[in-house]
Structures are given as structure tokens and as C-alpha cells.
């Protein structure tokens, strides 16, 4: 079964979605049909992306049934949602959180139970018009999480979603919609996994996060799809007045994993800390497009994307800092650092500044691409540390700056383990 209107209708019915949501899916599908696969030669935003070998017809829009997500234990979390493909999600949430008005449930369920909230926010950040893949995501998103944290509510333990791929040959398109009320404070984690590291899949894994006035939100995305996954994902953060975002995105999987991260610093005094980490081996390719959009005055953003590549792995980083006319007194920093661990690994980095208001405090950017520093290697080796150990320590040290920002212990552990296994 290819991507079709009937597939959209079938999926919507399967989730028992209300009419308005089915209508939105169908509108997105119309956009999908009307758009061509991006032209990587002519479309600025898609330059350097290698789409050779991508055959959208090769993927089933969903598989049914596709079994349950594995249920490992997660400790010290406030809530979990686990979903495999389009199957019903398994949710658990501390009763105390529900009592305080926290809503944490599958997106389709929220569309029925809280239509006013979902309708108002869904796909207003990640718009289906953006490109063919975003439209496909809007039409056939396989499920996802809805999280609403009311005004003034602080949650100490992280809330975690785990999305598993549906099996070889299927699309898996999860979507998280997160709303942090005024003065709320919490951490939310999206984890994307494949049961089999070799299975072929088409994936997204997108998130829209809205921070209302004074909200302080941590967002972590940990992507370890199979190494035969095509990923087209979007993260969009909308920041209200004096809100603060701490986002960490980790990309470990994918054959070609594209991720767009956009922070819209709308509210005066809002600030965003955006960290990214990637590690590629074999023939993996990563593609990151970031936007730090300073709309309101006195907004601050700090971005750091760091990655290490070995074998023939590649990465493209294109980062835009935009200071809009109203954004006086803003401050931004952008850095992309790439470590090449083999001769054939390749990283390109392109910063783009669009400054429309010169009354800014600071706007800095920097990019580096290079091998492990031979002076560092010599230093460690001169202390008797064997070359492979020294190299592994230096890679971990290099990535540590971002790893140290993952405040959720389970996620940190998972990443450390995978890196340790793959760096050697």
C-alpha cells in the first residue's frame, strides 16, 4: 500500500480521530501530492542533501497490526508513553501529576478529549507547507504524544516518550505536541528507536514545543533509528515572554537523517539554549538546519552542535541566526564543531546571519572541522595511554560538552553506552 488518501482515512479511523483532525490530515495529503521531492540542486534549503536512493513508493504508510513497544523499565520518570508504529500507545503517568492538571496522552486521544488545545497548536509550528516530507508527516503522522503542563506547575522527574519503528519497509512518523503553561517547569524526552539496526524505514520524529510566559522547559530528543532509515524531522520551539528553553538533540542513527531545529524567540526576554550531538559511522549522513529567530527584544540564544564522524560518514550543518527588526538588545551565539576520525569522513558547515536590527549586544558564530588534535594525542600517549584509548577519550571529551547537558540520567546512560560501543 502506497501513500494515498484512503491510507490517510484508514489511519485516522484506526485512531478514532475526530472529523477535524481527519480533515487536517487530508489537507496535508493534498499538499503532499502537490509538492515534488525537493530539488537538491536548485532549492537553497536542500542543497548538499543526498536524496539519491530514496524511493517514497517503497514504504508502507503504516503497518497494522505491528505489535507493542518493548517495555523496559524506566526509573525516576514522571510519565512514559510507548508506541510502536501506529499501534496503541501504552501510557503511564504518576497520579499526582494528573491531579495537578498535567495532561500526558496519545495525540489522537487528546484530539478527542482536548480539541480546543490540540486544534489551536497542532502543526502551527511544523507546517505541512514547508516541504513534501513535512506534508507527509502532517498527513500520515503515526501517533505521538500530547503534553500539557498547566500554569505554575513544576515537575521534577522527566516525562518520556519512546517511539519504535513499525518494522522493515514501513513509515514511522511520530509527532509530539508540548505546551508549557505560564511559569511551568519540566523536562520532556522523545526517544526514537528501531528494533533492528538494519531495517529499512522512512521516519520523522517531530516536535512542536510551546513555552508560555516564564516557562522553563527542557527538551531532549534521542534519535537512534536503524542505519537504513531516511529521516526527515522538524523541531520547532515557540518561546513566550521571559521563557527559557534548554534543548538537546542527539542523532546517532539513520542512513540519511535530516533534522530542522527552529527556535522562535518571540517573547521579550526569552532565551534558548540549543545543543546538538551526532556520531556517524559507515555511510551515515546527517543534515542539520537550525534557525535562531530573534523576534522579540532582549532575547538570547546559544547554539552548539558537535559531532564526530568516522569511516565515510558525512554531515552538513547550515545554521541561520536571524535578528528581526524588533529584536533590539538581543544576543546570539552559534557554534558547530566537527571531529573527523578518518580521511574519508566529511563535514561541511555554513553559518548564515540575517541581521535586521543592529542594536544588538552580541552575535557570534564559529565553525571548525578537523581531526583529533595531534598535540592532544601526543599528550595522552606520552602518559602511556595507548593510542586507541587516547582517541576514544578525546572523542568522548569532545562530545562531553554536550553530553554533560543531558540532565536525564537514563538518556545519558543510553547515549554513553552506544557511543562507547561505536567509537572503538
Amino acid at each position, binding site marked *: 500500500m502506497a501513500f494515498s488518501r484512503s491510507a490517510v482515512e484508514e489511519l485516522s479511523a484506526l485512531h478514532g480521530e475526530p472529523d477535524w483532525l481527519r480533515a487536517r490530515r487530508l489537507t496535508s495529503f493534498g499538499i503532499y501530492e502537490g509538492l515534488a521531492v525537493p530539488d537538491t540542486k536548485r532549492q537553497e534549503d536542500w542543497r548538499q542533501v543526498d536524496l539519491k536512493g530514496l524511493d517514497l513508493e517503497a514504504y508502507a504508510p503504516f503497518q497494522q497490526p505491528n505489535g507493542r513497544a518493548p517495555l523496559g523499565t524506566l526509573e525516576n520518570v514522571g510519565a512514559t508513553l510507548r508506541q510502536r508504529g501506529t499501534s496503541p500507545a501504552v501510557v503511564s503517568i504518576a497520579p499526582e501529576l494528573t491531579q495537578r492538571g498535567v495532561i500526558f496522552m496519545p495525540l489522537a486521544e487528546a484530539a478527542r478529549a482536548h480539541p480546543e488545545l490540540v486544534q489551536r497548536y497542532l502543526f502551527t509550528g511544523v507546517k505541512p507547507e514547508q516541504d513534501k516530507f513535512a506534508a507527509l508527516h502532517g498527513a500520515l503522522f503515526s501517533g505521538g504524544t500530547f503534553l500539557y503542563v498547566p500554569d505554575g506547575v513544576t515537575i521534577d522527574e522527566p516525562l518520556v516518550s519512546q517511539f519504535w519503528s513499525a518494522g522493515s519497509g514501513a513509515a514511522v512518523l511520530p509527532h509530539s505536541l508540548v505546551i508549557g503553561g505560564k511559569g511551568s517547569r519540566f523536562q520532556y524526552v522523545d526517544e526514537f528507536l528501531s528494533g533492528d539496526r538494519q531495517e529499512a524505514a522512512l521516519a520523522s520524529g517531530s516536535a512542536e514545543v510551546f513555552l508560555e510566559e516564564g516557562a522553563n522547559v527542557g527538551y531532549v530528543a534521542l534519535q537512534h533509528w536503524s542505519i537504513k532509515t531516511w529521516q526527515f524531522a522538524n523541531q520547532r520551539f515557540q518561546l513566550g515572554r521571559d521563557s527559557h528553553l534548554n534543548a538537546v538533540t542527539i542523532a546517532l542513527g539513520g542512513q540519511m537523517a535530516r533534522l530542522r531545529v527552529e527556535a522562535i524567540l518571540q517573547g521579550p526576554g526569552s532565551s534558548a539554549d540549543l545543543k546538538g550531538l551526532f556520531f556517524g559511522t559507515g555511510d551515515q549522513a546527517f543534515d542539520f538546519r537550525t534557525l535562531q529567530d530573534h523576534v522579540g527584544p532582549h532575547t538570547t540564544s546559544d547554539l552548539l552542535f558537535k559531532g564526530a564522524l568516522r569511516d565515510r560518514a558525512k554531515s552538513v550543518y547550515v545554521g541561520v541566526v536571524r535578528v528581526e527588526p524588533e529584536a533590539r538588545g538581543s544576543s546570539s551565539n552559534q557554534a558547530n564543531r566537527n571531529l573527523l576520525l578518518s580521511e574519508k569522513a566529511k563535514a561541511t558547515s555554513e553559518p548564515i546571519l540575517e541581521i535586521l536590527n543592529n542594536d544588538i549586544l552580541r552575535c557570534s558564530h564559529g565553525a571548525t572541522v578537523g581531526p583529533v588534535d595531534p598535540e592532544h594525542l601526543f599528550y*595522552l600517549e606520552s*602518559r*602511556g*595511554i595507548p593510542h586507541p*584509548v587516547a582517541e576514544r577519550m*578525546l572523542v568522548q571529551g569532545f562530545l562531553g560538552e554536550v553530553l554533560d547537558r543531558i540532565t536525564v540520567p537514563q538518556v545519558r546512560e543510553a547515549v554513553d553506552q552506544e557511543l562507547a560501543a561505536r567509537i572503538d
Partner: protein
Amino acid sequence: MADFEIKDLRVSVEGREILKGVSLSVNKGEVHAVMGPNGSGKSTLSHTLMGHPNYKVISGQVLFKGKNILALQPEERAKLGMFLALQYPVVVPGITMSNFLRTAINAKRGYDGKDKSKAINVKEFRALLRDEMSVLRMDDSFLSRYVNEGFSGGEKKRAEILQMAVLKPEIAILDETDSGLDIDSIKFVSDAVNRMRGPELGVLIITHYTRVLKFIKPDYVHVLVNGEFVRSGGPELADWLEAKGYSEWVKEPAKAPAALEAK
């Protein structure tokens, strides 16, 4: 034959010959000072002995424990018992001093990540560091900081000597360990080195100035000029240099900026 023997060593850097046939014998239990003006090849000597990849050996041998160590990787030289305290220790972000020291100690003990009984345990590690750190006036916060990151000049040099103290080399090369240090730091560093002196350690102190030699008394002094040893003698040679400088061999500005020396 001496315990550590440099024989007619010639070395080039970026195609230029810097060391032009240097020979030196160091026995364990001895402290040798290698002195020389800027650009004489002092740092080339120290880096070549430790196996830095930028220094190309043209000819010569360095014999230690029955091996020509010039054929060995830096890690193998370290395992054999050599140590180099760098003039400019590098900042290594993301690796804590504690992790760095523990990994180095474990490497020396032959721990390869498998046989846990070879690895140093937390208690031993603590005990090993406690004494040395107090001599060097270093507090515990050093251990959780990244290697040399944000360290002052004096802290970097003390951290080098701390590494030497826990790795217990048999041949230690101290490259301009006194440069950039205030007098207190020189004392702390010298105390730590003097504690380690003994029949199991041979030391090569490389320095431009005689100042440090008032605290670490050498048994022998060698003057290196333009890639060759031009004079050797006992500790009195240092006093002579203190008075005369290197003017016999080179024209020198009164205050030579040490940082300009070829690395």
C-alpha cells in the same frame, strides 16, 4: 654504559636541522641540567626524546633498557619509564584530571579494560594523590576540572609534576618547568621533584635560566648552543652561566622572551 644514553642525535624540524649530533649519558640517581639560549634546540631535544611526531630523527640512537627508544611510540616510551613534563601543557577539554590520571596509571599497570584486578581502585587512587597534591599545594577541585582548562601557568606546571609523581618514571625530562612560574610555585615544584630524587630516578632539567637550579641542585650541567653541546661540567657551571650568560656563544638581548623559542 649509562642507564639512559643519547648517542650522536641529529634531528630536523620542518626540514631544518636543529640538533646536530648530541650525546649525553644519564644514570638513574643523577640530575642533569641542559641549559641554553633561545633557539638552541632544548625543546627539540625534549620532544624528540618523548617521540613527538613533528620531530624527525636524521640519525643517532637513544638507548634505554637495552632498546633504541627512537623506534618506539610515545606510549611505549612512557611504559618503559620515561616522562616528559611539557613546557606548554595542552588544554584537553572534556577530560577530567581525575579520569586522565586514572587512565594513565591503569595503562602503566597494564589494565586494558578487561582484568579489573589490575585497575587502581578508588581508595588507592585517593591515597596516591593525597600526599603529592599536598606537597604541590593543589586542592581536590583540580581532579574534577578538565585537563589544564582554566589552569594558571603555575597550576599547569604543578599538574605536570603531579603526573610525574604518580607515574613514577625512571627517566624524567622537565622542559622549562620553571618558566612563567612565581617564586612560590618554583618552590612547590622543586620540593615535589626533590622528594622524588633517589637512586631510581634520573632527571634531565631543561632550562634557560639558572633560577630553578638553586632549588633542584644538578649533578651535571650541559650547555646546548645551536644544536650542539658546547660545554659540560658540574654544578659550578651553572653559577658561571649565572654570571656570564650565553654571551660567549651568542649575542643575546638582555631579556629574551622565552616563548619565542622554537617548539
